[in-house]
């Protein structure tokens, strides 16, 4: 089976600082991959590189048969095929919810406005947010904003959805509503990669858990074995630290 995303020997540096070292990873279609690791281990950078928001210095990132990292010319088209949701929601504050969701489908894909709005309303309805369609982002709670941001990414019908610590900025009582929407997306067979600090959530949703430390993949595996029987000393130490914190 050919992976939907394949990372081959990816290196990424910010100036003198190497943040990704020799990343090799396959992401299967319809699977959920959870990236875990301490802050600064490279999870977010890996996602940002996948969405071409950052350049890599060496290696290849294949989306099916296209090397994302080495195809600058069609970068905008490729970005549209990869959806991304950020920790800080990043909704456009000067547009209402409906406009936030339809901007890219109309401007990038050239959909007709009425068509794009119909689809946006369908998505909002499915996730229980239809009554917010005409609100501006600053009138919404963090949880609502993050759910809208996920819907905004989905409206482009991306082949893979990247979620960068999407619950980290939320109040505890709002984390659940965002997790629920991600579980729903898994049930819809949407391919996802998520960087997360929530080990419980990772073990519940992931098909593959990837542990990064100082920019390298230390260990990966199905959550059933990854969490109960980690192979590496560094993984064990990390898991101990985070479970103690809880």
């Amino acid at each position, binding site marked *: 089976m050919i992976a939907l995303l394949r990372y081959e020997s990816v290196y990424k540096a910010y100036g003198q600082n190497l943040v990704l070292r020799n990343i090799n990873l396959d992401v299967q279609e319809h699977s959920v991959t959870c990236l875990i690791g301490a802050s600064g281990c490279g999870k977010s950078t890996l996602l940002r590189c996948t969405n071409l*928001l950052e350049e890599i210095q060496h290696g290849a990132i294949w989306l099916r048969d296209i090397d994302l990292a080495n195809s600058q010319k069609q970068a*905008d088209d490729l*970005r*549209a095929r*990869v959806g991304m949701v950020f920790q800080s929601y990043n909704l*456009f504050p000067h547009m209402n919810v409906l406009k936030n969701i339809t*901007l890219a489908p109309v401007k*990038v894909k050239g959909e007709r406005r009425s068509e794009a709005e119909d689809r946006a309303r369908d998505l909002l309805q499915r996730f229980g947010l239809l009554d917010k369609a005409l609100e501006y982002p600053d*009138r919404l709670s963090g949880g609502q904003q993050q759910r809208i941001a996920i819907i905004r990414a989905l409206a482009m019908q991306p082949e893979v959805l990247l979620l960068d610590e999407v619950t980290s900025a939320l109040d505890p009582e709002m984390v659940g509503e965002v997790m629920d929407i991600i579980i729903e997306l898994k049930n819809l067979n949407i391919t996802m990669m998520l960087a997360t600090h929530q080990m419980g959530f990772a073990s519940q949703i992931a098909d593959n858990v990837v542990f990064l430390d100082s920019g390298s993949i230390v260990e990966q595996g199905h959550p059933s074995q990854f969490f109960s029987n980690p192979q590496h000393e560094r993984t064990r130490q990390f898991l101990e630290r985070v479970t103690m914190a809880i």
Partner: protein
Amino acid sequence: MSTIPPPPLSDQDVADLLKPKAFWEQQGVIKSLIIALLSTIVIFGGIAFTVGRSEGWGAVQQAFFSRPDMRAAFPKVWEGFQLNIKMFMIAEPLVLAFGLILALIRIGTNPVLFPVRAIAIAYIDLFRGAPALLVIMMLGFGMPGLRISWLPNDPVFWGITACVITSSAYTAETFRAGIESVHRSQRSAARSLGLSNRQTFQHVVLPQGIKAVIPPLISGFVSLQKETALVSTIGPLEATRRAQIYSALNFNYSSYVIAALLFIALTIPLARFTDYLLQRSAKRMQMGGLA
């Protein structure tokens, strides 16, 4: 401190706590009002007393605030003021357009456009620093002095041009500040959706950047209104020039006061409008506290 906790408030007491209070019922309001009133009386009373008792007040009042002179000067000054309004109305849209273009050139990064960027930076440095009065005189007297047949001779034309040149340099920097205040994460979000660099700028960065600087832009409108008075130095019969003519003929400065009142009357609505915009954006920020 007693060992028994005090009893909880009755429902009636809680309702009283929550009852909206009239303005004067709020704690400390009466005291604040009295203090404000007293300090106002002391300060303004003191100024009025000192000025009114001064030896020359009668003469000053006659020279600047003479009612008959104000009435007599008003028709001409008002006629001149319409020229100020006309110059302002023509200049302002040009200032906005030209200022925005300059700002866009300045923030660009395309290496091909480096020479254009260098010119824009030099232009902004030059005309933001040069006094408007000098630019007005150089264009108003210098350009016709060149005796190039196809150049216009009209001082109003050169006055407006000079106002546009100096104000647009200021306005360009205001626009640039607004555009640069938009957080990088907004760009990331737009690019991640597949929007091109240009689309991102047009639909996401620019609207937010302009919105952020609407109050300082309006402040700029107010300065431009006043700047039109400087055009009087090259001849056009606008409000201050009319006032000057009246005062030279009648040995009385009340005509200037009339001109000043007209300028003030025009700027106050704009100032209140700016306050309203600032207040509104402050309110929106507070609502963000829920998130």
